[in-house]
């Protein structure tokens, strides 16, 4: 049985192909302006890797903000359900998923079988999401991929007090002009996002093991800042960023 999961987020588009409950290919790219083109490209990229063609796929499920644009999907499921399924597939013991996506973050409480028991999402504000980091990287003129390692050498992380992304940006700019070190500012930014996400997740009953998903999971600075709050048992799977797509493909396996 061959299935595909396509996750169209605000920043990146992801695809995973599963064969009999095994991952055979994954692909990831920026979403860009044309959502339809984005998922078509990512699907063919993943199919090429797996040396398959679309008509060999038995079931396709799409997820993420752009899920409705995937007209060839047999079903469209929200990223909440897919992230829960993905986490359950990758690490069956997981009880809480914290996902930091491009424009929203969420915490999901899982049952033993990977079903969603409850979930919370960030409010309308972008603070506490990947977008917050992007805005800050631009303000700092630092490549976002470097954020993690730079923050590791911080000596005295600054405190960002603004709750709003736009105000936090001006706060950061004024810190730059005050001569605070980049590393300390970046570490402060990571703490700020971790605090935001943690207080959101605290509205749920956070049960271990906890898995962090979404592109931000690649950022060691945010991971460490979150560990300070949640303890060391925060699982980071190598597929963290693909978790939603994998969950969609896994649900497609189960629902065929």
């Amino acid at each position, binding site marked *: 049985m061959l299935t595909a999961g396509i996750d169209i987020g605000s920043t990146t588009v992801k695809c995973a192909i599963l064969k009999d409950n095994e991952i055979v290919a994954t692909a990831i790219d920026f979403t860009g302006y044309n959502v339809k083109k984005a998922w078509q490209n990512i699907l063919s990229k993943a199919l090429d890797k797996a040396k398959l063609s679309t008509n060999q796929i038995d079931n396709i499920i799409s997820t993420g903000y752009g899920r409705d644009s995937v007209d060839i999907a047999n079903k469209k499921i929200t990223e909440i*359900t897919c992230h829960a399924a993905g986490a359950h597939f990758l690490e069956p013991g997981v009880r809480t998923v914290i996902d930091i996506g491009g424009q929203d973050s969420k915490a999901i409480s899982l049952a033993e079988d990977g079903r969603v028991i*409850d979930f919370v999402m960030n409010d309308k504000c972008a603070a506490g999401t990947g977008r917050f980091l992007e805005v800050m990287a631009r303000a700092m003129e630092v490549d976002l991929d470097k954020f993690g390692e730079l923050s590791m050498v911080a000596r005295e992380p600054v405190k960002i007090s603004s709750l709003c992304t736009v105000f936090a940006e001006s706060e950061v700019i004024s810190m730059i002009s005050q001569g605070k070190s980049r590393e300390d500012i970046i570490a402060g930014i990571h703490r700020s996002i971790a605090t935001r996400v943690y207080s959101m997740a605290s509205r749920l009953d956070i049960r271990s093991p906890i898995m962090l998903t979404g592109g931000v999971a690649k950022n060691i600075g945010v991971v460490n800042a979150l560990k300070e709050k949640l303890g060391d048992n925060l699982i980071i799977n190598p597929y963290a960023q693909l978790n939603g797509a994998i969950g969609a493909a896994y649900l497609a396996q189960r629902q065929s």
Partner: protein
Amino acid sequence: MNMEYKKEPIKTKSKMKEIMTNYFLEAFDAKNKGKKVAWITSGGPVEPLIAMDIIPIYPENHGAMIGASKLGEKLVSYAEGLGYSCDLCSYATADIACSRGEKGPIGHLPEPDMLICCNNICSTVVKWYEIQARYFNVPLFILDTPMCHTNFTEDTKEYVRRQFDELFLFLETVCKKKMDFDRLEEVGRLSVQAQKLWQEILDTTTHSPAPMSAFDAFFHLALIVTLRGTEICVNYYRELLEEMKDRIKNKICAVPNEKYRVLWDNLPIWYKTKWLSEKFAERDVCLVADTYTSAWCSSLRYIDENDFLGSLAPAYTRIYLNQGIDTMANEIIKMIDKYKVHGIIMHSNRSCKPYSFGQYDIQKIIRNKTKVPVLIIEADMLDQRSFSDAQIESRIDAFCELLHS
């Protein structure tokens, strides 16, 4: 599709338009007829006004009309231009905008001869009514109902009761005539009758599938707010109740494939009721009950029908929004049981602080005491700028998936 059950519009609905039109026409014509108009808050004691032949006008009901006709953003922005903060309740700012010349769905409201403000719903109304009293240069009466955090004491009762005496005096002074207390008891009887009918109507949704949804309740609520204490109101609800009973008999319901029953907390999102009701229906979900419309019959238990005058103080103090969070949570838990709901959606309403403030705590209490999942969505009852379609849709979708799993 469940072939046994079918969806049909509620017939009684057609009478509402006529009743509301006549109500407003009468109010606009009040001066010619020598009648007085009072603006009153939605939780305010209207019966003494009706007994004095005063026409009550509800800016909050007008607010709902503004929301439903999607004029909220325009009016609120106008008020912001006048200097009012964007953090204020949008009912207040929209009303202020309308009375300063910006057009609403019926132009503007009939001008008041007096203002009656009861702070049992919030403290915003006090400042709002003070502003309007200055603007229209009319007398204002403020009925202060202390918050009943855990209980309702004899002192509170006496404190509020005395203010009712002052209210009667106020009305007598403005109208230059005496209060007819027999008439007040009669109006009280009609008011209680209407509240009982309203409760019975809401209770028809304990039947599954429900003959109507909370979205219908949001619509039919208008009369219990504006015309309670009159025969018109009683007759309308009597007919509506009969229709609901017939619908149950004839297998007519709100959502023919009703699989999941959901309770709504807080005010409706007036400009999105159609969108939301379609979203839920597509997902076989019916909003069967809500804490908002039931607030207009929830103090029935404190009313002694044979002593309406003596019941005024508890009835107007012990209302849903004027009590502590634990009491509110308990009420919701009772509703979960009564209406057999599978999930709760809480509208965290940017405008309405007293309604939205304790929601996260209530959510926790519900989570601890029941297994019912609670979704919180953020919006505003009237201001479209606070509503994000994509975000809310994906939250609702995820919540429905959770219910279905």
